[in-house]
């Protein structure tokens, strides 16, 4: 196991009024645990506000944890931005963000953007930096003649390739991708997915792929985790979850996607997602679930097996024909 998170909680206080008193808290992530194996891709899916991005940021230390810990290669993660000791953790965990326009510094050339992390971590010297950058650009299938240009000269897909190259520059063990293809057009999206697939295979990296698009996750990830209101409702091998989801929310998510087959219209999920300020008692999906009854007032536990779900009334498994 390369990366593990144990019982991670991220809460944000809401303050208001004249004296700035605490009025409540947004419970963005509530006790999420995850394991990422070597060379594996784990997909984290859920709708907006389910806490998937916060979880991703918490894993790399960009959000403070109220509770819980993140363990990288057997050691508790210590991302201290001032000290030498956090340096290897910072190097081994890299993140790629959703918006390739805002995640690149517009005032740095591509060469500067890509060489800076390597110089900081002594992975190259000033003399061989250009060769290293050319190598990186080749990995993401861009020409090395582009390295002296600024980000504005590139299209969205190209910029996302540059972001990937920047993350790769430190040879990280784990790459966390937060909605990396959602800002891109379908034809470009496919190119980036294929690139990530190739890199995962060739570099032996582990990936955490955060997305709201289940079909995209299906392409890339061996394992899947479905979040709802900051908690895991189902996790397991993606093939199994797609062919036979056990949690009603997972089923509802899958049913809502408009397929290309007009004979299978999307099914509706009733109601609205509750606010993360006032989490419902018991099962968080209770209010929107057709199967809910009194037992759902007790919080269901996530079954800790290969394929686990947090539900008192799991759906019957679909037999494979």
């Amino acid at each position: 196991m390369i990366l593990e998170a144990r019982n991670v909680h991220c809460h944000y206080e809401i303050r208001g009024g004249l004296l700035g008193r605490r009025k409540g808290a947004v419970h963005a992530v509530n006790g999420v645990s995850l394991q990422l194996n070597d060379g594996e891709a784990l997909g984290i899916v859920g709708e907006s506000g389910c806490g998937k991005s916060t979880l991703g940021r918490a894993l790399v230390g960009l959000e403070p944890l109220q509770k819980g810990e993140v363990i990288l290669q057997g050691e508790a993660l210590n991302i201290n931005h001032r000290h030498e000791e956090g340096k290897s953790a910072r190097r081994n965990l890299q993140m790629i963000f959703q918006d390739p326009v805002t995640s690149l510094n517009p005032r740095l050339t591509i060469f500067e953007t890509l060489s800076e992390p390597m110089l900081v971590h002594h992975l190259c010297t000033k003399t061989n930096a250009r060769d290293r950058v050319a190598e990186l650009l080749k990995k993401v299938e861009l020409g090395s003649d582009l390295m002296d240009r600024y980000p504005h000269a590139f299209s969205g897909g190209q910029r996302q390739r540059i972001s990937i190259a920047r993350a790769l520059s430190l040879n990280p063990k784990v790459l966390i991708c937060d909605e990396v293809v959602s800002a891109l057009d379908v034809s470009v999206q496919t190119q980036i997915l294929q690139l990530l697939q190739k890199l995962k295979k060739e570099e032996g990296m582990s990936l955490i792929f955060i997305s709201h698009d289940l079909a995209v996750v299906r392409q890339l990830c061996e394992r899947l985790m479905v979040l709802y209101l900051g908690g895991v409702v189902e996790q397991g091998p993606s093939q199994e979850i797609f062919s036979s989801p056990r949690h009603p929310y997972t089923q509802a998510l899958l049913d809502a996607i408009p397929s290309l087959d007009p004979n299978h219209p999307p099914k509706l999920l009733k109601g609205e997602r509750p606010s993360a300020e006032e989490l419902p008692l018991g099962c968080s999906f209770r209010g929107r679930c057709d199967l809910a009854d009194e037992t759902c007032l007790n919080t269901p536990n996530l079954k800790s097996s290969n394929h686990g779900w947090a539900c008192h009334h799991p759906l019957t498994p679909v037999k494979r024909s």
Partner: protein
Amino acid sequence: MTSPLLKVKDLSLGVKTSNHLLQLTDRVSFDIGEGEMVALVGESGCGKSITAMAIAGLLPDPNGVKIEGEVVFEGKDLWKGNPKDWQNLRASRLSMIFQEPSSALNPLMPVSSQMAEIFTLKGRPVDMQHLRRSLDEVGIPDPDRVLKSYPHELSGGMLQRVMIAMALLLSPKLIIADEPTTALDVTVQAQVMEILTKLQKDIGTAILLITHNLGLVAQYANALNVMYAGRIVERANTRDFLAKPLHPYSHGLLKALPRLDGTPLEAIPGSVPSPDKFSDGCRFAERCTHRKEACSQPPPWKVRSGNEDGGYACILEGER
């Protein structure tokens, strides 16, 4: 077929920049019949949104834009008429739903005042009962609370429902929905699309659905027009298109779409050219695996065999 509700004919739009004219769309033509849902599909920058704006008469500065062609709505050519007529038309006969509901609504006005404004502008008395009813129709559970709310107090799905309710307030004949669900989650998307199709059936409103999501088209639209780099490259009814896309770009788009069954993806190499690089010849040629020398000439329009309403712009014959 009798004359359609909306007829767009050879619509070419250009934007004047400091030193030259940037041609954004090239002779775009399509029809929408009464009560139909027709989709305009394409990737960003293909000209679908600006076409929608031109139909609704919402192009920002008429002086900076060069327009050729016709937009005939209910038998009247809109671009030849008085701009004032257009304003009368909007909301009552033709209305629009935008992509980002949170930026399309005024953050400083409660929902009720924004909705009431439509009546005020038309010189009619404000009918609160009517507002409540229209919110109820789009599935808003507590219309009174929503009417009092400001946009920031409502979720994205709620706001988009408010937008739809506003667009439908005066029972228009045509709604232009520009990426109405792109900013929404899948479960909310399904709810919003369900409302739109229900209204289409109940009131007989025609809908021009502008989207990049072929799944939505497959599920909801009667017919579609595929746009690429400012031109319509294929037109078909949805069933024909899904069974047999004819243009290589349509083919590529369907293959590039991630599927839930995990079918491996096939990417289209390269990227969409920017408007200053648009050529006269086939604009998809440089990404096309079937490229021939003749592709540097403007592609001919070929009619789909078996259905004359459909067709595609490519030198290839239908068999592939």
